[in-house]
């Protein structure tokens, strides 16, 4: 817990339709953290993550990755930023008709030539690595099944393996368990923690359920209406803070 890996300074994002999703957000992310972002739907959590790996272009502000500003990178440099900052999604976003293994191999696309990718010429090394990552998330037996034949929880684990194939330094997780049932929730979260602790990959994760936050987060930030309203450790989220973040009269739901 020393080196700052990501440093966000005065980040703002206004969509073309005039909605301001992020307003002047600043925070630091330390290497090896499991940082959780909480807040109501529409508070800007997803926009924040998508700005960090440049799936969206921020309107203003800076993002320093290892001290280098990646907010103004253009063209091919953006692809290498995305490669180093992997992402998993609420809807898994796998290619449904491809096999599990091919889906993981798409994590190796960054920097691969046009001809090689046209003929899907992944190297033997890439393939064995992909299988290793599938083993890590406990799903290597399904490597040759089509991705859409898997259950939601299994698909999310494949998505984690795909992101790992990128050899990322940071993994963004946008509501990774919001479309899963409570039992599967913990399986996926446990794999995220494993990735965080065993591989030392920094994780920034959007979550809804506070009980999950308390269990997995090493640090928490909270957004409300696009502004940063809380920054601290999970046990600092008192009833008072909870009301402030989620609004008066909000009540907590527990996931077992």
């Amino acid at each position: 817990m020393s080196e700052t890996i990501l440093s966000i300074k005065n980040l703002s994002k206004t969509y073309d339709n005039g909605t301001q999703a992020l307003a002047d957000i600043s925070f630091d992310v330390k290497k090896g953290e499991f940082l959780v972002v909480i807040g109501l739907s529409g508070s800007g959590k997803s926009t924040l993550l998508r700005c960090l790996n440049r799936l969206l272009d921020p309107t203003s502000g800076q993002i320093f990755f290892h001290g280098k500003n990646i907010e103004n990178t253009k063209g091919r440099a953006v692809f290498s930023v995305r490669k180093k900052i992997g992402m998993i999604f609420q809807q898994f976003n796998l290619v449904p008709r491809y096999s599990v293994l091919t889906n993981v191999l798409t994590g190796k696309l960054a920097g691969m030539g046009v001809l090689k990718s046209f003929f899907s010429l992944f190297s033997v090394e890439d393939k064995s690595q992909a299988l290793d990552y599938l083993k890590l998330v406990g799903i290597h037996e399904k490597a040759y099944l089509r991705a859409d034949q898997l259950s939601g929880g299994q698909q999310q684990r494949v998505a984690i393996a795909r992101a790992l194939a990128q050899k990322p330094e940071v993994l963004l997780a946008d509501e990774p368990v919001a479309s899963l049932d409570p039992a599967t929730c913990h399986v996926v979260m446990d794999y995220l923690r494993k990735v965080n602790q065993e591989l030392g990959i920094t994780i920034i994760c959007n979550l809804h359920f506070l009980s999950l936050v308390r269990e997995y987060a090493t640090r928490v930030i909270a957004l409300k209406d696009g502004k940063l309203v809380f920054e601290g450790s999970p046990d600092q989220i008192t009833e008072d803070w909870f009301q402030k973040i989620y609004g008066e009269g909000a009540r907590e739901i527990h996931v077992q």
Partner: protein
Amino acid sequence: MSNKNRYFLKARIFDGFNILFILMVATVVLIKPSQNQLLDLKFNSSLALLFFLVGIFLSSVLSQKGFLTWGNLIFKSSSEKPPQPISWYKTLWGWQALIILTLSIVVGLVMTNFSFYEILNREGIDGALRLLTGIFNPDWSILPRAVNHMIETLFMAFIATVLAIPFAFVLSFFSARNVMESRVGFLVYLSLRTFFNIARSIEAIIWAIIFSVWVGIGPFAGMLALMIHSIASLAKQYSEMVESVSMGPVEGIKSTGAAPFQVVWFGIVPQIILPYISITIYRWDINVRMATIIGLVGGGGIGTLLIQYQGQAMWPQVGCLVVVIAVVVCLLDQVSAHIREAVK
């Protein structure tokens, strides 16, 4: 403009055209204009405009007085209360609709020279019977020639489709809104879509006439005509498929740091490959039918043979060609339906 005003305006324009039509027909019937007068576009259009304005005026006055015109009935805003249920013949709109529809049918019959006399004309009937007897007694001796030309037609359609595929495939991504996100991309998208619409609105038969002058009469001209038409049609249908893909996998591939070509190849192509095959087979099916017609204007194949025999009034030979065309079109229809079902 408020919603209510918009409905009011539409109703007035509709009634205006109604009354324009009635007054024009009345004028023609009353003064029986000469051919020269009918061709005087400048005077006639001014007259039409005058009648139109009269119509709008009349319709406004009537609806101000509380009458429900046909226009009011069709273009009423949803906020208005529905009209009282009364028998149609007690309403203005009922009579207006009746007059307009009757008048349209009468004018239409007059325009198309509808005549029972011609249908029942003895000589005409004899001619038609001669022709039909010929067609229903096909001359099978020309069957080998017919088959050879049919094969030419089939391959004309096949090559036109195959050559159109790569062009349409590549262009389809450049004319899909969800791929062309940037401002420059939008311009490319817009100009390609406009080009396809123009190319498609020019019938293949017109392309065939152009190409038969360009490269000479024959199957090559027909093939080129079908190809141009197929590129435009396929690209439009393909790009609609691209636009309907789910964007989740696309975002997923993008997040790995893949370049735009890789995003399309891994994120979009697997989602569209089956609909593409289905659309393409159907296009071949359509092209075979179109190739027959294109032959009529010199595009080669069985259509050219057909127009030759028809020009010489060789009806038994025409009959043989008709049978061959019907059999092939039916068969192909079945085959393509089965394949499309299978690849779904």
